[in-house]
């Protein structure tokens, strides 16, 4: 059972990498996509200059650079919906293996893409905006960014199970979700800026604790504080992964029962 699922996961990941190669050439990734990502982070960071505050500039730079990992990972909503559009969803549900490991691996290209884009944005733009990056300590931001990618990906999988029934709204769901994370998870302003229940909501959303850990890491907080933030982000990721598993099981079972796998809205 575990070996079967691992095999499915590996095959799905191979397919995900093929998708990435089909979407981008190295030129379009570097000059079109990555440029846009750098511009996005710079767009928010430069607001700090308008405010005349180096501290705000650095806060916005770190928040928006790490947010890129979440933003790209949420593309899982759109790419999962491609299975419906390609007409392959009924075949996947009819296969003897569970569709969940397949969907976990099927969009994993965004994990790599998101982690790389966010890391490059953080390390390339930091010197331009005067953000100190203490080495080698700052390199630990890389696994933290990967963790944020993973936790947001797990959250995105839950949304994907919904989007598979309403394919038309895939980009809308992905956009609204990413903006919600941007608003409440401490990207532009601290989570405590918003009234209840938003700070409490942020505690169970991806990005909040991972981003906090990156901020702690760069500000020289004790290792225990950084590890604590990372552990909380991992817990949030695991929670969303479990919910995603249940959501996909429900999708497959209810779809088989009412015939909505291929003929949902």
């Amino acid at each position: 059972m575990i070996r079967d699922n691992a095999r499915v996961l590996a095959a799905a990941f191979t397919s995900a990498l093929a998708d990435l190669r089909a979407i981008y050439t190295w030129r379009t990734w570097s000059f079109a996509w990555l440029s846009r990502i750098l511009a996005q982070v710079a767009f928010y960071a430069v607001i700090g200059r308008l405010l005349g505050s180096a501290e705000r500039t650095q806060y916005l730079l770190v928040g928006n650079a790490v947010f890129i990992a979440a933003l790209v990972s949420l593309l899982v909503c759109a790419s999962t919906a491609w299975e419906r559009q390609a007409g392959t969803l009924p075949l996947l549900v009819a296969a003897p293996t569970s569709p969940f490991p397949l969907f976990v691996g099927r969009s994993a290209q965004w994990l790599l893409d998101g982690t790389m884009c966010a890391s490059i944005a953080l390390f390339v733009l930091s010197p331009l905006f005067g953000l100190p990056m203490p080495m080698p300590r700052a390199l630990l931001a890389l696994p933290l960014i990967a963790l944020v990618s993973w936790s947001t990906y797990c959250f995105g999988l839950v949304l994907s199970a919904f989007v598979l029934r309403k394919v038309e709204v895939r980009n809308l769901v992905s956009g609204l979700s990413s903006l919600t994370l941007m608003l409440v998870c401490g990207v532009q302003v601290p989570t405590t800026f918003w009234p209840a229940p938003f700070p409490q909501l942020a505690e169970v959303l991806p990005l909040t604790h991972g981003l906090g850990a990156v901020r702690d890491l760069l500000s020289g907080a004790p290792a225990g504080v950084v590890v604590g933030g990372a552990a909380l982000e991992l817990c949030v990721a695991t929670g969303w992964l479990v919910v995603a598993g249940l959501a996909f099981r429900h999708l497959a079972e209810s779809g088989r029962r009412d015939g909505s796998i291929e003929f949902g809205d």
Partner: protein
Amino acid sequence: MITVFGAAVWFQGLQMRRVANLSALVNTPLFTLALVAIMVHSGRSDLAPYAVVGATVIAVWNMAIVESGGIIDADRGQGTLEALISTPAPLALVVLGRTVTVTVISLLSLVESVIVARLVFGVVVDVHHGWLFAVTLVLTAVSMAMTASALAGIFVLSRSARTFQNALSYPFYLLSGAVVPAPLLPEWLQPITKVVFLSWSTDLIRDCLRPGAVPNALTRLAVVAGLGLAAMVAGVWVLRRILERVRTTGAVSFA
């Protein structure tokens, strides 16, 4: 000509009834909250109108590149481009009619943004030069529609229009001075902002929100219109080239 233009406007209006085509307007309140929150949290509520302008520019430009920019690409994907170019109606006029509709609808984002800023943060956006503000908005909309028509043609030449639609978002928000005026950008970027009509528009709009006199208003309005017209001329030229090419090769759906 008027009938063709009117039909194009009407057709696009019907297309825009789908909520998926209005995602920029759905996102506008959240962008407004994010940008105004930055100003308010920093104790600079006086800059909140900049955030309102920024959220509007994001929505208008986003709809221009995604909805308007994808018009010909979508027709090609649906197999309706062949029928469209075989009619005597000029394709550029049809595209312009459709982009005008998208642009007018996208301006609703300004109303959304002003209301959200008012309701959530109590921010009041005062317009001190009403006529100039209105003329700037109209000229900006016209220039945006013309620029979007050009993009619709240019995107057809790319392997993946989506890649370029994504790539043209934030770099233009930055260059258009959507939130932060061009003089605060790095010096090497500032000459580029001069050829982006939106940077002239956003500067004018911000000046309209201040009580003092607006310097060189007519010249600046002329630049907004001129840059939009230049984009339209380029767009018509690109469309002609595309039509010549696909009529010669017969590869309408595979241009």
